[in-house]
């Protein structure tokens, strides 16, 4: 007989089932996904019950289509004149290595999308004098509606140097969070559901809406780092040194300061297609200090071998690190 286990067990399974179901309906479902789902369902009856239940409810929700007409909402009319235009600057020396900036004209002509690949780094010069620096694996859209200065960070990390204009606030949106500049230099990093805003200079306001639609607003001063998730908003304070280390990527480096090997590897992996993988958790806890160029995977591996005496094995695109 099964007995009570961790309180969140059913909720966890439900969340996993919902993830699968959302993927099935994403429009990008494939054979590999199907196999993964089948294997998961075969693992337990609890998985089956949770998945079937969500699927059946979603099928029932088909009935909602009767509501279709009144609920569909037309988009706003596309803006004709672009308030800010962009000149892509010759980026810093290491930018040429991988991932040229991709520029996509979006369908509606309301936004323009800029993206960097893994290891990419690009500087966008806006016509209003502001500057946006994109870090590795980043996607950002710039609104072209007249009279608006709005940017959406869809993925990755960017550093903003905003030319202040009180009558046209510069707004960066990340999911349900908005950062409104009050004349500033700041970085924004999106990672999964987590948003991290670090303010270097000036002032900015972060408006955050959590999953219960509750609104929170916080004003940031230099040195403030705000971390927002779907459920919380917290504020920490960093020294100038720590902040400049956090922004090392603008100079093409990552800085580790008593960083665990696990975190260091995760950071290096952001910039390189060849991924490092730590095989055992005891290794992951080792800590290291130092500054590495973002693409210095061989040097990083060398440190792992020479300093920690770890063994390293190459396997396709992956490099396994173990004891």
């Amino acid at each position: 007989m099964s007995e009570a286990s961790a309180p969140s067990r059913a909720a966890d399974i439900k969340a996993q089932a919902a993830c699968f179901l959302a993927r099935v309906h994403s429009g990008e479902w494939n054979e590999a996904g199907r196999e993964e789902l089948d294997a998961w369902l075969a693992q337990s009856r609890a998985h089956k019950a949770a998945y079937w239940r969500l699927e059946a409810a979603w099928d029932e929700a088909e009935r909602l289509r009767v509501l279709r007409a009144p609920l569909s909402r037309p988009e706003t009319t596309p803006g004709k004149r672009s308030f800010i235009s962009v000149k892509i600057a010759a980026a810093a020396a290491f930018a040429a290595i991988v991932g040229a900036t991709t520029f996509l004209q979006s369908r509606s002509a309301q936004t323009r999308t800029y993206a960097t690949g893994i290891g990419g780094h690009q500087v966008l010069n806006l016509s209003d004098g502001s500057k946006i620096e994109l870090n590795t694996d980043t996607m950002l859209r710039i609104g072209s509606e007249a009279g608006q200065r709005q940017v959406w960070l869809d993925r990755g990390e960017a550093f903003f140097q905003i030319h202040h204009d009180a009558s046209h606030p510069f707004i960066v949106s990340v999911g349900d969070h908005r950062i409104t500049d009050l004349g500033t230099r700041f970085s924004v990093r999106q990672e999964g559901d987590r948003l991290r805003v670090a303010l270097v200079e000036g002032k900015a306001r972060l408006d955050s809406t959590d999953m219960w639609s509750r609104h929170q607003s916080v004003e940031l001063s230099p040195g403030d780092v705000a971390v927002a998730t779907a459920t919380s908003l917290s504020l920490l304070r960093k020294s100038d040194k720590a902040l400049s280390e956090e922004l090392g990527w603008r100079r093409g480096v990552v800085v580790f300061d008593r960083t665990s090997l696990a975190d260091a590897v995760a950071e290096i992996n952001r910039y390189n297609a060849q991924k490092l993988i730590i095989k055992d958790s005891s290794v992951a806890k080792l800590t290291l200090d130092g500054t590495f160029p973002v693409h210095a995977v061989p040097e990083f591996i060398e440190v792992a071998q020479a300093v920690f005496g770890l063994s390293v094995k190459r396997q396709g695109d992956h490099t396994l690190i173990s004891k």
Partner: protein
Amino acid sequence: MAEKTPYANNDGAKPGLGPDAMTTDEVKAWFVREVLPLEAMLMHFLQKNWRNRSDLEDFRQDIYEHVLEAAEREIPERAKPFVFTTARNLLISRLRKENIVPIEIVADLDVLGIAADEPAQDRSLFARDVLRRLQSALDRLPPRCREAVILKRIEGLSQREIAHRMGISERVVGNYVADGMSVLADMVYGEQTDSGSRT
């Protein structure tokens, strides 16, 4: 334990491997058609008999696991008494562990009219109510999540189109849709209908 449970008459055979084992599709069809529409009543029953609300979802999960296990061997002739007997037996064994004497549960099953099993009537009640439940599920979603669910389920847009339209990444759309799916299921199946006090 001396208790006779509906899932305990498994004379050593492995579930699903017996000669009369049901196919997964049969089990699923039965579960969706017969068991899920009972969920609101089941949750009501659990709420009345179990103080700790945070356990209810796990409790329901356990009941479904037992019900499926039995159905894999043979699909119960009458779903409702079977589901509620399973629920009661699990409750009793849980309450025993906590040294609470569970007298009223047994009586409660009769009060709920579970002895009188009328599946056709239960199902049509459920069907009549489902659109209203779906609508209140939509109302309950946070605005952005609701927008994603509407674009997906009602407008039938792809994840990519939704991402574009809402100005968010496809992954965030996926998260919204997944959250929406959970809330829809809870409302469609789990929520007790307060007949009498409908607005």
